């Protein structure tokens, strides 16, 4: 994950109550989703950034997961997400991120 993003997320986790924080990811495939999810849950897997070894344990979802979709009004979902829900493998993405979420 971008190094500056890692620093910003680290700061956010120090500024806000972790119980209030939710990370939503928009990665297009399982491989990049797992790297992003790992970074904010158990630490930067490439050990390059501020979140190397950080183990923030942030509550993390992929935006295409059912639980997230259910919270978003249809018109906004259609405008912002639209066909990407079909184009991207929502099932595989959900599975990947859920597995890492469980490690929090």
């Amino acid at each position, binding site marked *: 994950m971008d190094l500056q*993003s890692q620093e910003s997320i680290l700061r956010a986790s120090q500024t806000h109550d972790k119980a209030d*924080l*939710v990370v939503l990811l*928009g990665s297009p495939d399982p491989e990049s989703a797992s790297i992003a999810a790992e970074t904010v849950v158990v630490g930067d897997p490439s050990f390059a950034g501020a979140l190397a070894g950080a183990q923030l344990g942030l509550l993390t979802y992929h*935006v295409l997961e059912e639980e997230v979709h259910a919270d*978003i*009004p249809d018109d906004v979902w259609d405008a*912002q997400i639209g066909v990407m829900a079909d184009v991207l493998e929502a099932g595989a993405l959900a599975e990947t991120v859920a597995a890492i979420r469980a490690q929090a």
Partner: protein
Amino acid sequence: MLKGKKVIAVGERDGISGPAIAACAKAAGAEVVFVATECFV
């Protein structure tokens, strides 16, 4: 599950961008505290 929460939106250019996620989160009643979009090409 998003209402009243503070959302960190990390999007990807080839998937769902940060701003798109943020718009969804706001519509769901969350506050967005960080937005970014990654690009790997």
